[in-house]
């Protein structure tokens, strides 16, 4: 599945032992993916490979993080891996939706790659439909987290200190039986599947998600990436945190082209 780039670094650039894998779920508002774009762009991460997979809709374009003419000509596809060894961080960016019936094969292949590359833990950035919140969730922070039991042991205490809110479970049969609770992440794409598979495979995984709706999700991405930063400390968090994240050049024209002057 993972195809390393040919680079002078050789195998060193695809050695992820002990690294944290950061990845988005393709979810409502694409917030996870936007947040991952901010991380890759701000930290100037190097591409170390891609996923050769039939599970995602194909797409290709030129380098979405281009800053100048010289670096704008590298091709970029739908699932690519970036690395920053100084922070022991490896990032997977997913740029297109899943093909029908391919959620499970992708999750399984991804998690077995996580195990074989010996990543220490996985952090999934995701989102969930804001309109599905219950009365309590409508108040307070729209951010939630989830930890698999293996990661709970390691960082559960830190989450308490940060005063983060764990994602609430909902009744499996609302109105009929309120005692049986299940995890429900509407609009979260593969989030729930990845999380439950990781629980059963003993993988250390955290999910960080935000309740949001479709629209201009750039502010949601900033909120989510700052939430991530509270924990992982990827950049120095200062008072005006949002201004330190670098917006990639591919975010131009998200809402259409310029208007024809003849319209007026």
């Amino acid at each position, binding site marked *: 599945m993972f195809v390393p780039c040919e680079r002078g670094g050789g195998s060193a650039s695809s050695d992820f032992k002990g690294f944290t894998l950061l990845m988005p779920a393709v979810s409502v508002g694409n917030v996870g993916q936007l947040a991952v774009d901010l991380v890759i762009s701000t930290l100037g991460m190097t591409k170390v490979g891609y996923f050769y997979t039939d599970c995602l809709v194909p797409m290709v*374009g030129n380098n979405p993080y281009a800053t100048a003419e010289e670096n704008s*000509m590298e091709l970029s596809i739908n699932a690519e891996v970036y690395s920053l060894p100084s922070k022991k961080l490896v990032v997977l960016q997913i740029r297109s939706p899943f093909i029908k019936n391919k959620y499970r094969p992708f999750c399984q292949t991804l998690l077995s790659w996580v195990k074989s590359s010996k990543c220490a833990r996985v952090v999934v950035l995701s989102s969930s439909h804001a309109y599905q919140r219950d009365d309590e969730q409508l108040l307070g922070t729209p951010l939630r987290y989830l930890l698999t039991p293996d990661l709970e042991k390691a960082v559960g205490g830190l989450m308490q200190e940060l005063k983060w809110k764990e994602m609430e479970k909902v009744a499996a049969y609302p109105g009929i039986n309120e005692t049986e609770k299940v995890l429900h992440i509407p609009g979260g794409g593969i989030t729930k599947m990845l999380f439950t598979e990781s629980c059963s495979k003993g993988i250390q995984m955290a999910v960080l998600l935000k309740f949001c709706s479709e629209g201009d999700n750039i502010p949601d991405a900033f909120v989510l990436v700052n939430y991530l930063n509270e924990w992982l400390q990827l950049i120095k968090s200062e008072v005006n945190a949002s201004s330190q994240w670098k917006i990639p050049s591919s975010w*131009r024209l998200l809402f259409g082209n310029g208007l024809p002057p003849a319209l007026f």
Partner: protein
Amino acid sequence: MATFFGEVVVAPSRAGVDDEEETREETPEDREIRRELEKKREIDILWTWKSGSSAESSADQPFACSKFIVAIGRNAAAFLSSFILDSVCWEVVGVVKLWNEWCRTSSTTSVLPTDSFCLFYRLIADPTVLLCQCSCYVAEDQQFQWLEKVFGCMQKEGLQVTILSTCPVADYKTQESTLTLPSPFLKALKTKEFKEQVCCPLLEQPNIVRDLPAA
């Protein structure tokens, strides 16, 4: 979201299809239905080499190919028909048979320009030059299969692939309005292994290419 007549409609999400049905466990009946659908959506490539070998694909040795030109979509296919292909220099060597909700192709090699088809041609003077005209739509779940089956038949050492395709000007993302843009215009994407001169400017961010050309 409420429409004019008061019915509630689920707004489509940019994130794609909702996951709930994917997380449900498949029953044996579901699995059977899914397998039947997958079989119906399988792509078959029938090679019609004149060497006398059988018309089946991929089991044989990969054939030598130095240049592979693929025209995807009706416009690109028509371009090849009008300016490149003729019955003197090119011979038909293969056809793709597929079905999806948008089109069906057959295994016949004599087609009308208005049909949906996917044919392979070989330059008689240099049999390592291959050309593909694909005017049918290859669905997203079939694109990977098409790719693997077609390229699986070829030796990839020293292979140069050129993909011709068209997109509506309205889809082009630019600071100005596309109304004032002189069209048609050419843009290119190239891999870093492609060392020759490209005949037109490269595709700027944030534009992307989708579907079979992207695959």
